[in-house]
């Protein structure tokens, strides 16, 4: 058994075992670093379609070939719906690229800005609505 299927299985198991809603409401500035943009590529393993923010959990294979679970904060479900994203828009297992901002504590947590699918389609995650910095790319600006 190669390492990748193993870590994938472990990652999926962990995603299922995670508590239902472990993320208290917070402001962008309280948890995320506007000076620490990042880009992550990984497979979606868990979607929390909840208020006040939706969360997308992805499994990222790092440079050592080890799977890491990252949790990405999106906007409110209403914001995402207005941008054309519903809870079924991205299937579990879909590989996505996330542009966002790293957590201040440098945990595997980020505020999502955009999701890019393999087809090149880009989806705005509504992160500005949580207080994330605006860079001119926000829809409607």
């Amino acid at each position: 058994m190669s390492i990748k299927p193993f870590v994938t299985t472990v990652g999926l198991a962990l995603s299922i075992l995670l508590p239902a809603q472990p993320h208290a409401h917070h402001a962008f500035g309280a948890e995320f670093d506007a000076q620490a943009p990042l880009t992550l590529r990984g497979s979606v393993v868990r979607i929390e379609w909840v208020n006040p923010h939706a969360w997308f959990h992805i499994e990222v294979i790092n440079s050592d070939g080890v799977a890491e679970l990252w949790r990405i904060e999106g906007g409110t479900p209403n914001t995402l719906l207005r941008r054309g994203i519903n809870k079924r828009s991205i299937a579990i297992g879909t590989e996505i690229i996330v542009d966002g901002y790293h957590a201040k504590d440098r945990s595997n947590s980020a505020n999502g800005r955009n999701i890019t699918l393999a087809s090149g389609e880009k989806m705005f995650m509504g992160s500005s609505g949580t207080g994330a910095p605006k860079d001119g790319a926000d829809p409607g600006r």
Partner: protein
Amino acid sequence: MIRTRLSLALLLFTLIGCSPSEQAPGQSQTSQSQPGQAASSPFKLSGDTKHIMQWVLDPAADHIWDSAGSIITAAGTRELAPTTEEGWLSVQYGAAVVAATGNLLMMPGRAVDDKDWQKTSQALVDAGLLAQSAAKAHDADALFDAGSQIYRICKACHSAYIQGEKAEGSP
């Protein structure tokens, strides 16, 4: 836990001088008190707005938000809505606290102005009552929508009144 929530809800209703049966869902009563009347008001403030947010509104709103929505994994979709009468009743208590908090925010000495502050607080009352009705009807979709409305009100108020933080303010 539920007894604690019920006690808190009853305490809040007592504080603001109304009972759940006196106010129909979707309606809010307009306070006749003015922000500047704190000195002559019979109300005795038991905490500032920050305390109301952290100790009263936040836990109640979190309970509503945690009780509606979906968790999707490879194993399937799990709905967060309560599955028992006790669970729905617990959400009703949380919603009652949210509604009552809107009135607490309008109390003389706590209200910041007579205009937008009062409107936003009344909107919070309405949103709490919507959540209360949704929980009473065991309507998960309506509860989810009411939760969205509660957050929109929180965010609008923070944007308007938390100086220097704008949209970054947290309840």
